[in-house]
Structures are given as C-alpha cells and as structure tokens.
C-alpha cells in the first residue's frame, strides 16, 4: 500500500493580524517583552566584560551607558520588563495550584505573595548597591 502523504494545513493570515484587536495586541506586546529580557542579558555581558578588563574599561563603559541612546533604550527595556513581570506574576496561579490539607489556596493570594516577593527582592538588590 502506498504511504499516504499529509500536507500541513496552514490558514493564511495577514502578517499584521495581531494589530486588529486589543487582546491580540496585548498578546504580541507580552511576547515582545522577551526582547527586553534579552537586552538586559546582553548589557549584563558587556558589564562583565568591562569589569574583567579593569577599572579603566569599567569607567568608559559607565560613560557609554550615559549616552542618550542608551538611556532611551533602557527606558524602553524597563517598561517591557515591568510588563513582563506583571503579566508573568499574574499568570502564576494558572501554572501552580497550592493546597494545604485539601484547602485550596486562591489564586489571588498567590499573586499577592508574588508581588510582595518581587517588591522585597527589588528593595534588597537596590540596597546592596546603594551605600
């Protein structure tokens, strides 16, 4: 018998399909926050590079970060990161079900706990570097 061949069905969609509805735009903006996360990683690598090269390289890297282009890039990346954190922490109850002796903890508490943890971790990290 001849082996049947299948062709993947693909619905034709316009490239900008996500721009037509607010919920779709929300989806694509959330997906694009990955660029902010990647941007952070790359800048972090250059930070490490400057630190491994010595005090002079570190100082010149700090002055590069002061350029208007970098400030604007960081502003955009920062708003993306905030959007990522909020959407991610809000989704946590969907991925995690917590129970204490058969009593189901409501999603609201998980989200609230996430926000408290986020706030405390943020303050802790900032305090390490401010002194």
């Amino acid at each position, binding site marked *: 018998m001849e082996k049947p061949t299948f062709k993947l069905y693909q619905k034709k969609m316009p490239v900008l399909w996500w721009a037509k509805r607010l919920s779709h735009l929300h989806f694509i903006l959330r997906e694009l926050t990955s660029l902010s996360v990647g941007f952070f990683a790359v800048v972090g690598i250059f930070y490490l590079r400057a630190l491994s090269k010595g005090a002079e390289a570190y100082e010149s890297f700090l002055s590069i970060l002061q350029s208007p282009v970098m400030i604007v890039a960081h502003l955009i990346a920062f708003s993306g*990161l905030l959007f990522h954190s909020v959407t991610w922490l809000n989704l946590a109850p969907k991925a995690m079900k917590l129970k204490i002796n058969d009593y189901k903890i409501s999603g609201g508490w998980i989200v609230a706990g996430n926000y408290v943890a986020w706030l405390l971790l943020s303050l802790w990290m900032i305090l390490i570097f401010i002194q």
Partner: protein
Amino acid sequence: MKSKPYLEPFWWTLFGAGGVVSAFFLPALLFLFGLAIPLGWVEAPAYERFYELLQPLPIRGAVGMLITLSLFHWAHRFRFTLYDGLQLQLWRKPIAILCYGTALGLSFWAGYFLLNL
C-alpha cells in the same frame, strides 16, 4: 520540515525558569544599572567594590544563571513570536537554531568573562 518534539519540554523548562527569575530580578537591576546610575541618581559602585562583590563563586554562579536563563527565556519566546507574529511557519528549524544558538553562544561568552574576573 520536522522539528524534534521531545526537546520541547526541555526548552519550555528553561523558558519557564528564565521567566520567573527575570520577572523577580530584572526590573530592579535594569532600573539601577541602566537608569539610576547613568542618570546620576545613584552613585556608581567603585570598581574595586564591584570587583570584590563578584569574587565569591556562588555570586558568580548566580550572575551566570541569571544571564543564561534570561537568554534562554528570550530565545524560546522570541522563536514563537517570529513563528506566530510574522507567520514564518516554514522557517521553523532555522529560526529555532538561530534563537537557541544565539542564547547558547552568549551564555558561553558570559561564562568566559565570569571565569576571568
């Protein structure tokens, strides 16, 4: 073009772990190092102090994990953004290789600097 479905849980785990650590840690760090320090609201840590801070192995390991997981979070999510957002279903394999390859390469680069600190 066939993908390797058995690898998906592995990529998704890295994506998920990266999503958690980046949600908790990145906003404050980026605000501090990318905005507050360059704009002069906070004084930049002196080179020696920063260098000392990064000396203990667990700290370097944590920084390496933070960067690596962030990169793989980016790779996985951006891969699907390209598939779905730009309708590039036909290029699944090259896109996957490009995304994860970039994340892997940059992770090694970060590791190289961390070992040379």
